[in-house]
């Protein structure tokens, strides 16, 4: 049966008619056409579907759309400034070449931004632990770890 789900995505109030079994990531990608949020494994392991929900990084493939009723969601599309200026974490990924194919990057950035809020100057070890829920099959993680450390410090400095 179709039901209505209403939430805020990237600051805009949106609603969608969906089946009750619809996942949050499906609403984001297929109803709202925000295809920056990726579905990698679809089993809550890879983290490519990570978005911010009510200020916390979560895996949108493991959440029913109905669970997000009334929530404030931010996707990778909502991270940069309207004029296109990159978020400090995005800029750090670019600067440190923290990506190769880029498939995992939106999830990495969304998780990293949430992590950096409570870790303004993280150690390498802390960054690696924070990445337990994000898989990258290209980079070997070294530049992602560097990027997140630099991004976190840039976020703290821009406050």
């Amino acid at each position, binding site marked *: *049966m179709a*039901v209505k789900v209403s939430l805020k995505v990237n600051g805009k109030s949106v609603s969608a008619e969906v*089946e*009750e*079994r619809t*996942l949050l990531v499906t609403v984001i990608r297929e109803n709202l056409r925000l295809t920056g949020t990726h579905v990698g494994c*679809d*089993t*809550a*392991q890879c*983290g490519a579907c*990570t978005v911010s929900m009510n200020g*916390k*990084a*979560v*895996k949108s493939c*493991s*959440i*029913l759309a*109905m*669970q997000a*009723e009334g929530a404030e969601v931010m996707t990778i599309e909502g991270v940069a400034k309207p004029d296109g200026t990159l978020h400090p974490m995005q800029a750090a990924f670019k600067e440190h070449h923290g990506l190769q194919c880029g498939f995992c990057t939106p999830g990495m950035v969304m*998780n990293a931004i*949430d*992590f950096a809020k409570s870790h303004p100057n993280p150690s390498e070890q802390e960054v690696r632990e*924070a990445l*337990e*829920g*994000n898989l990258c099959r290209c980079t070997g993680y070294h530049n992602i770890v560097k990027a997140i450390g630099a991004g976190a410090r840039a976020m703290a400095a821009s406050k």
Partner: protein
Amino acid sequence: MHAFKYHRPSSLNDAAALMKGDAKLLAGGQTLVQTMKLRLASPSDIVDLGTIKDLAGIKSDGKSVTVGAMTRHADVAHSADVNKAIPALAALAAMIGDRQVRAMGTIGGSLANNDPAADYPAAVLALNATITTNKGKHEADKFFKGMFTTALGAGEIITAVSFQVPKRAAYMKFKNPASRFAIVGVFVADFGGSVRVAVTGAGPVVFRQAEMEKALAAKFAPESVANIKVKQDGLNSDMHASAEYRAHLVTVMARRAVQAALK
């Protein structure tokens, strides 16, 4: 995922009334949603506990720490009260899954599911916790019945878990590097005179290790358990680890947990 009817009750009573037939409760959904996607579960109805007030939160009174059923793992891990009263419990919560999963997953969901490799059952059993539901209370020793099976009855909903504050405690987990579930996890809690040792991941359901408890009650030191040989009979054997390997790990994790508790 098969179709189901979704409900958003506003009270515990409404939620309980909806638990008919193949209805399932949804807490954080970090196990259930995946299980439904794999069609290992195909409930007729989903009863979402997410909007019921007062099911989340942490209270501490010096003797016990009470955690609401819908409290997220991340909130237990970061709670100043938990870190002060039972740091081992906060550390355990910080080891569950990954940080995105910890932002959604709940203690009530974990306990009701009772995965044989889950972390929380070890803390509940070692810290002699009491599980409160909409129908009454369960002692930890009588709650975990078997693999994915608990003492919860039909329509029974966990509301809170009260942990007894130990003199000292620690949890050591040898984790599967992919899933981060416990291959073997051992929670050791010293209540001054009595010691409880709970083992998760090793068998079909969390269990206490009586021989280690006795040895640690006599002397709370790593060497008290270092030479205790755990029998492999009845322990899990799978692609990740043999029963023999898990039996060995129980002793190693117990020794390390005692070491950590003494720090």
